[in-house]
Structure formats: C-alpha cells, structure tokens
C-alpha cells in the first residue's frame, strides 16, 4: 500500500516536471518534445552511472567469475520468462507463450531454480517481451520519448508498460523489504554489468551520446515490437 502511494507521488512529480519542461524547451525532434527535460535526466543518470553504478558493475565483473555471473543472470531471466510468456499470450502468440512457460518449468526444475538455462541448450529459445510491447501490438503509439530518472530511456507508452512490469514483478513484491532491496540491487548490477561492453561501444561510436542512445533505443523498441522483423524502411534515393 505504501509502495503504491510512493509510486503515485513519483508519477505526479514526474508529470509536473514534464509540464514545466514542456514550456521551456525548444524541441527539434518530433519524437522527443521534452528534449530539455530528457537531457537533464540523462545528465543525472549518466552522473550516477559514472560515480556509482559503473564502478560497482566493474567490481562485480572483476570479483565474480563468469559462471557465477551467468547463474545470477539466469536466475532473474527465469523469472522474466513467466512474463515473457504472459505477454506473448496477450499478443496472441500462443506457441511462443507456451514455449516461455515450458522454459520456466524446465529451467526451474532441471536448471535448479533457474540458475542454468538448460532450456536454451535444448533449443527452446528465449524471447524478449514486456507490457510496453504488448500495448504497442494492441495499437498504442509510442508517445513522446522520456528519459526516466534511474530507469533510463522509455517512451510514454513503454513507461505505462513499465508500471505493469514493475507492479507484477515478483522481485519487487518480495518480502521482507531487505530481501526485496538486495534482489533489486543484484539484478540491476547484473544487468548493468552485461551492458558494460555495449556502453563502451556507444562511447566510442557516438558524437552526441544523448541523441545516439535515444535513436538506438527507439530503433531497438521498434525491432522488439515486430519481433526482429520490422517492415523495412525504404532506402532513400541517392
């Protein structure tokens, strides 16, 4: 109950900030009308990342050998498969949905509580689904791009999806609170560690990291919504 109130308060605050930012920003990209606000949030997230999150992730990578990190990754990935399945069902992809749920059964039993991804070795491929994608399949448009504090890049639709992802997440619902917090922190560090290589590539590639990340995120989401086969955009004439 208390968690919900904090969530609502945070949402109200975010909306107020958005409204304030919307008035003062000169937008150049129609997909990103709140660019001023988003850039400020990006600076905040990036600062936090440089100071705290990235160092912790590097330490985790240095201390924990890959087999152990793999087990941590797989444990949380197994929980995700429950919701990959649910979202595939909601999108009418029943075969994929059953595959996801069968993966959970296989990995929870033969994979010992999910720490081994034996289902992938058996050829049962993992999917990547969430409520944001489900809403997109149901016809909800992207909405404006939003850089959320702590959570990173989203669109308005995907932030709506995030509320469902988050509220239903067994890790977030875990009790006592101390256990929940350490589970959330562990999962976060595990995910950030897996992105260390990608973020280094991005630093190398981008002229303006904010724009590069935004465009990459929007392209990635489009690809995920279409399960890797988005309608091909026409090659502009030379």
């Amino acid at each position, binding site marked *: 109950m208390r968690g919900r109130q904090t969530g609502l308060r945070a949402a109200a605050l975010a909306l107020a900030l958005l409204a304030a930012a919307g008035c003062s920003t000169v937008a150049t990209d129609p997909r990103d009308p709140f660019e001023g606000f988003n850039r400020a949030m990006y600076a905040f997230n990036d600062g936090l990342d440089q100071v705290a999150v990235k160092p912790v992730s590097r330490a985790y990578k240095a201390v924990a050998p890959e087999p152990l990190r793999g087990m941590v990754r*797989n444990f949380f*990935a197994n929980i995700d498969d429950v919701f990959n399945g649910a979202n595939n069902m909601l999108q009418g992809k029943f075969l994929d949905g059953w595959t996801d749920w069968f993966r959970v059964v296989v990995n929870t039993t033969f994979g010992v509580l999910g720490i081994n*991804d034996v289902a992938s070795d058996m050829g049962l491929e993992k999917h990547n689904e969430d409520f944001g994608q489900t809403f997109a399949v149901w016809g909800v448009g992207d909405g404006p791009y939003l850089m959320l504090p702590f959570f990173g890049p989203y669109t308005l639709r995907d932030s709506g999806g995030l509320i469902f992802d988050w509220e239903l997440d067994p890790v977030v619902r875990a009790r006592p609170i101390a256990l929940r917090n350490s589970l959330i922190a562990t999962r976060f560090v595990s995910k950030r560690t897996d992105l260390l*290589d990608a973020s280094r590539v991005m630093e*190398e*590639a981008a002229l303006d990291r904010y724009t590069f990340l935004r*465009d990459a995120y929007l*392209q990635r989401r489009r690809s*995920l919504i279409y399960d890797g086969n988005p309608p091909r955009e026409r090659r502009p004439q030379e």
Partner: protein
Amino acid sequence: MSKWIASAAFAFAAAAGAQDTPPGELVKSVMLDIQASVAQDKDLQAGDRDKTIALIEQKALPHFNFVSMTSLAVGPAWQKATPEQKKRLVEGFRGLLTRTYASSVNSFRDQKLDFRPVRMKPADTDVTVLVRVLQSGAQPLDIEYDMEKTVRGWKCYDVRVGGISLVVNYRTEFANLVREGGVDGLINALEAKNKSAERPAAATAKK
C-alpha cells in the same frame, strides 16, 4: 590431406578475388576468421586497440562500402556536398566506424554464432545476411548485414545489431550537425571525434 586441399583451394579462391563469394559465405568466413585470430592472440584478447584495428583493416573492412554507408547516413546533404567534402566525410565516418567495430570485436570472441542460410535468387543484388549470437539467459542477438553486389564483389552497406541500424542511428546526429554548421560542421565534428579518440589510445599504449 583433404583439409589441406580445402584450405589451399580456399586460399586460391581468396587470391582470385572475393568477387564470386556469395554474401552468406563471405560473412561467415570473415567472422570466423576474426574469431580464430582473436582466439590465437593474447594481445587481441587483452583489447590491444592498434592491433585490433589492424586486424579488422585487413580482414573485414575491405568488404564494406563506406561510400554507400556515408551517403546513407548523411542523407539529403550528401547531394549538396562537393567531391572534396564527400571524400573527407567518408574518411571521417570510416575512422569512426572502424574504432566502433574494433571496440566490439572482443565481446564476440567466444560467442556461439548461428549463421542463417541466405534466401536469395541468383539475380538479387541486395540481400540481408543474418547471423545470430546465441547467449545463455538472454534472447539470441541478431546481427544483420545488408549487402549489395558491386563489380568488386559483395559489399556491406549497413549493419543492424539487435535491430539497431548503424547507418540509421547516425542520421539524426548528422542532420543536426549539418543544420548547425553545414557539411563542414559535420566534417569537423567527425575529425575532432577521431582525433580525440586517438589521443587516449596513444596514452594507454605507452603505459
């Protein structure tokens, strides 16, 4: 013995020119060749950047069409650029892409790759080659190479990783820079980025 003949035949085919190598086989041979090189070399595994760049300059970059990539990323402004500007744009973008590529080589060094068969007709001149990176606890990562047939063999003009097109991703950035400072503004930004990236590399090499 048959292995030796096969590799001799392969070397001969390579020497005769890669013109006739179908795009799927070309991608496969280049990727496996790079993986094998990294597996044999301690410096490459440690992330030695100069050596990594030398490796991809030799093995991979000849199969890219940087003029196509640049024109696609620059968009409408490409038309208005002078030949000299075009040359500098291609050089700048090539440098940027080369270093980006180099920084990703190590991530794929011991990944299982699944080379998907390419569906194409003999007359096709533009195909996509799909390679999937299989990973535990995550959805397989798709790498797609858009390839076009040229007189000098099949050349790659865009790479999509997890659905993110490299060329498309630069379009907004490039368009913003052209709007602010014209084509020369974009050239300067590319050259400045390349220069700033060379300096820390030299500094770490000395250490």
